[in-house]
């Protein structure tokens, strides 16, 4: 499974993309990613400013990941 980061999450982690371990839910994935480095821990410190998309659809953190190919983490959107 591929994990993508955008905006300040990408900057804090230092990567735009990485391979992720299998996880049952988004929350489990976040826990696994946090354990990777202090940069990941810092990026995922305040989950109220983090949003997630699973296969390019906005989802909640308890969303299941079975069969998912791409998970993206990013801050709340600021387009327009």
């Amino acid at each position, binding site marked *: 499974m591929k994990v*993508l980061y*955008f*905006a*300040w999450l990408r900057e804090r982690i230092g990567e735009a993309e990485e391979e992720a371990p299998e996880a049952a839910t988004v929350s489990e994935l976040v826990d696994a990613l946090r354990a990777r480095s202090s940069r990941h821990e810092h990026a995922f410190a305040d989950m109220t400013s983090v949003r997630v*998309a699973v296969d*390019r659809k*906005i989802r909640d953190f308890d969303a299941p990941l079975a069969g998912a190919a791409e998970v*993206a983490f*990013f*801050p*709340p*959107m*600021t*387009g*327009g």
Partner: protein
Amino acid sequence: MRVRVQEADFDLAAEAARLEASGAGAVVTFTGVVRGGDVAAMTLEHYPGMTEAALEEIAVEARRRWPLTGLTIIHRVGRLAPGARIMMVATASAHRAAAFEAAEFLMDYLKTRAPFWKKEETPEGARWVDAREVDDAAAARWAKAD
């Protein structure tokens, strides 16, 4: 229905003319522009692939809710100077109320559902623009109509 994500600027008059030719009685356009002041430049990042799909979804929802004869969304990405056009929406309908409402709906949904992020360059350094609660509230008011 015309949805574009691009680095290049767009021609507002040409886009409006395209909708005027759709046979509508009313065309509404909105343009977002980079503010002046202490911002030297703004960079827009997006999520290629998801952005286009999200904008299409918002456009389809607008057409479901209002009788539109045409609809255009163009959003730029990349580095933009103050005064530069960031994005536009345009709606065409037989009557102005539908065109105005649909344009506002497109803006409110786009701000909260399309994956764009703005970073500003200021004299104090670069900063990511924070999402505003007022934008969430503006988007939420349309939920009643579901």
